[in-house]
Structures are given as C-alpha cells and as structure tokens.
C-alpha cells in the first residue's frame, strides 16, 4: 500500500518519489514556511520603522534578529482567553483552517526547475539519473490547485468571526468573506491571459514557457491586475477592511488570543508568500535567471531556488512598502474597484490575448 502512496500525486511525471522523499519534503516545507512567516513579521516591523524614521526591533539578539523567537514564546505562553458565548467547536476550527489551508496550498508550488541527480535535463524530462521536482505534490493543474485551496481560507475568516459571538468579529468576518469572493474572480481572470500564452495550468510548464520573455512583458496589465487583487485577497493595507482597526478593533480575530491568534497571523503571512510566489511563477519567470549561464544538475537547481526566493522577497517588500504608504479604501470603493474596474479589465485582457494567440496560430 505504501509503495502506491506516491502514485496519487505523481502519475504523469517522470520518476516517482517514495514515501521517504515525500515525508522529508513535507517537513522541510512546513518548517521553512513557519520560519518564513515569523521572520516576515520581523521584516514588516523593520520596514515600517524605516519608513516612519524609527529603528524598529533591536533589543533581542543582534539587530533584533531573535525577536520572532521571543514573540513565538510569548504567544505560546499567553493565556487562552475566549468569550463564553462562543461556539466551542467552530471557534477552534477557524484558526486551524487558517494556518492549515495556507500551508497545504504551498505544497503545489515549485520553487525551482526539474533537477536530474546524476543525469541531464532533456525538455521537461530526465535523461538518466533521479528526477527531483522542487515541489511537494505534483498535479497537472497546480495553478488551479493553489487557487482552490487558498479559496478555502475564507471559511477560517468567516468561522472565526461568526463563532466568537461578538459584533466586531462578525462584521469583520462578513466583510472579509464578501471581499475574498469578489476579488477571487479578479485574481483568476488576471491569470487566464498568462495561461493562454503558456497553454498549460501546470506551474512548471508556465515557467518554462517564459524562457523567451517573462510574461510581465507580454501581460503587463494582467500583472498589475493580479497584484492589486492579490493585495485585497491577503487583506493587506489599502484593502484591509476586514480588520480595519479604527472601526472594527481587529476584525474577525478580535476575540482570539495567544497561539489561536498566532495561527491567524501565520496563515496571513503564508498567504502573502503564496500570492507573491504565484506572481513570480506566472509573471516574473519563476526560477529562471536573468543571467542565463548556470543550469545543470544540483547547482542549477539551488541557483534556481535562490532566484525564486529573491524575486518573491522583492514582491513581499513591495507589499510591505504599500502597506505603510497608502491610506485605506472606503468599503463601497473597494467593491466598485473589484467589480467595475479589475473584472472588466481582466475580461478585456483575456479577449485580446486570446485573439492574438488565435491569429498567430492560424
């Protein structure tokens, strides 16, 4: 039975990972994401401080680098204060889903190209050697997989808001659900243009289709639409109405404390990483280097990871920069922007891209 386990996710690709490889990959992804989320809070505070002419965290460890560890310890040891009128089961499901869905979605994201250990890469396959894919599970619709799993995150926001039996939470939860559903459409439509150009929903193939030119050059409008909608999807500042602190205290997680709140925080930052990873893979050439001189075996794979992480970090910095620069939207304007601007522009982009591709093919 265990020998068949890998069949679920790796039919149709060259070579199949055994259970050991899958387990190791899963642990690495989990730890890396948790660490990344912790240090993103550090980065966020440092960036915010610099923008506001402050210094930021600098007491715990050199340059304040151990601050995230101190925060984690604090979160774990704080008291779990919970409202008495809560729905006991769903109050716990909310934060678990927030962290879980985000981590699960990352499993299908390839962070580097196919690496053949002891062989050479030929096309999208291997000529001898062990084929090593830099993702955890491989489905041929990985782009849709990520969108589908992240769209389940809306339940965590909504359940958190509803189960706590508090009006601030409920309003935050309702707002976030409406916002996520509205902007999901804009996100999907912005990505369709790139999918038409690549002719595949497989993130690895989408990246390989950008070897001539990154899609940000061919689809600049789609990239802008995607990034704007993605800010709204992750509740980042110009669009952070679900947790607008001046009116809703803290939105859907008002009534959460200690590590339960920590899981919402974790999910939020991992969602930022996912959104930036998708933008990198679909529009910025993923792991493809700007300087095309290294690509073979292990070294090439690791260099690809470095390029990928570099591009993702740059996008994450832009997101933080925007957060501390722009004021918040009003709620009706937010909905107008989503439905009356982003969505029609996305449709126009799809029609134009499709027409050009069809004309060039005929």
């Amino acid at each position, binding site marked *: 039975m265990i020998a068949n386990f890998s069949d679920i996710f790796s039919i149709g690709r060259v070579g199949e990972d055994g259970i050991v490889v899958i387990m190791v990959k899963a642990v690495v992804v989990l730890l890396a994401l948790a660490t990344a989320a912790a240090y993103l809070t550090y980065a966020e505070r440092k960036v915010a401080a610099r923008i506001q002419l402050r210094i930021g965290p600098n007491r715990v460890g050199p340059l304040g680098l151990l601050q995230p560890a101190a925060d984690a310890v604090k979160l774990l040891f704080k008291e779990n204060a919970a409202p008495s009128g809560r729905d006991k089961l769903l109050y716990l499901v909310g934060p678990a889903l927030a962290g879980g869905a985000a981590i699960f979605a990352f499993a299908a994201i390839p962070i580097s190209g196919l690496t053949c250990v002891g062989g050479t890469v030929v096309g999208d396959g291997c000529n001898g050697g062990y084929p090593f894919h830099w993702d955890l599970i491989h489905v*041929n619709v990985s782009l849709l997989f990520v969108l589908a799993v992240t769209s389940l995150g809306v339940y965590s926001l909504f359940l958190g808001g509803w189960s706590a039996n508090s009006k601030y939470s409920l309003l935050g939860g309702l707002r976030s*659900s409406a916002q996520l559903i509205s902007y999901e459409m804009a996100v999907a439509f912005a990505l369709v243009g790139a999918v038409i150009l690549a002719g595949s929903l497989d993130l690895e193939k989408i990246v390989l289709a950008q070897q001539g030119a990154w899609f940000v050059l061919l689809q600049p409008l789609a990239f802008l639409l995607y990034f704007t909608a993605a800010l709204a999807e992750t509740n980042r500042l110009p669009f952070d109405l679900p947790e607008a602190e001046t009116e809703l205290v803290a939105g859907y997680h008002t009534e959460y404390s200690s590590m339960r709140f920590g899981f919402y925080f974790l999910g939020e930052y991992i969602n930022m990483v996912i959104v930036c990873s998708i933008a990198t893979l679909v529009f910025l050439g993923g792991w493809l280097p700007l300087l095309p001189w290294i690509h073979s075996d292990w070294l090439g794979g690791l260099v690809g990871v470095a390029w990928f992480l570099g591009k993702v970090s740059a996008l994450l910095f832009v997101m933080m920069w925007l957060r501390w620069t722009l004021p918040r939207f009003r709620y009706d304007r937010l909905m107008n922007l989503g439905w009356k601007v982003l969505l029609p522009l996305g449709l126009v982009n799809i029609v134009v891209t499709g027409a050009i591709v069809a004309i060039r093919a005929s």
Partner: protein
Amino acid sequence: MTVIIWVTGALAALSALGVVFSRQPLYSALSLVMTIGALSVIFLVLNAQFLFVVQLIVYAGAVMVLFVFIIALLSPGAEDRVRVDSRFVIGAVVALGITVAMVVAARNGITFNNSNVFRAQQIGQASDPYHAFSFDQSDLGLVNTAGNVQTVGGQLFTTFLLPFEITSLLLLVAAVGAVYLTRRTRSGDPPERRERALGRKPEPTLEEDRIEVEVG
C-alpha cells in the same frame, strides 16, 4: 490507493449523514463542505485532477461560502428532531430507489476491471474532435485523459456545446432576474426617486407594487 478511496468514501458518507441530521443549519452546511472535500479527494485519487480542483473551487470555495454566509446572516434556530411518520417512510423509500439507480448508472460508467484498478469509460473516442490529443489506451491512461483539462475543454466546446451554452444561458437568466428583483432605481429616474432608493423615504410606487405581486 484503494485504502484512501475507502477512507474518504466513508468520510463523505458520514459527513453526508451530518448534513441531514445536524440540528444546527450552519453545521449542516459545513458538513456539506466536508462531503464535497472528501469527494474531491476521491477525484484526485482517480487522477481526475481537473475535476478535483473544479469541485473545490466551484462548490466548496464559491457556492457553499454563499450558503454559509446566508445561514449565518439569517441565523435560524435549531431544527426539530426527526420524527418517523408516513412522510419520512415515503422519503426514505424514494431516496433508496434513487441511490440504487445511481449505483447501477455508476456501474456502467466507472467499473473495476479484473486487475482491481478503477477504469473510467472513455468519452468521445469515436467522434473525438480534439484531434491533437491522442488517447493513451492503457487503463491509467484512460482515467488520466478523462480527467484532463484538454479533454474536458474539448468536449465542452464541441460535442456538448449546445447543452453547455444552454446551461450558461440559464445561469445568466437567473442572475439577470436576481438583479431585476433587487433593483430599486435606474439612472434615468428623477432625483427624488433615487433618494428614496437610498432608504431615505421608502414609499411604494407602481413598479415596486408590481414586483411584490409577482414575488408573492
């Protein structure tokens, strides 16, 4: 593989029972989400990856979110306990009949072959309009192509074009109807009417009366 199908199948059946027997409407809706999730995992194990993703996006990610939304907004109270009476018996018999019919139908579509591997019936081979796509004739290949984006898309836009378009027209009609019924104002209206639409002075008008008659 078979183990995962049994486990997720049992989970789907259990959560489906939860949909019916939960006394809180919100728990029923969330059980339905779980049923959908378990079914989508079965699609994934059958290597119908596209169906897996569509199931999650369309049902769990969109339709059920709206259901949960509405239920929480209206916050209906707990339901009464199930009573066994004549209506219950008739309903159970009908449900059983439908289940048997579906099992028979499914046997003709998806079957076990003698090597104990799931095998989906090949669709549209004779009139395969998607010429660029060659079918893999092995058992796994059949399942794989049946779940592929290209196959589904090709079938939808050729063999099943008419039903597909009619269905989308139906959805469009429903959307237009919903917009018409909830609409209060139009841009050409005089300003005092538009003010009323903002909730300042709700006065019945000829048009709104007519709509109410239609709805009631």
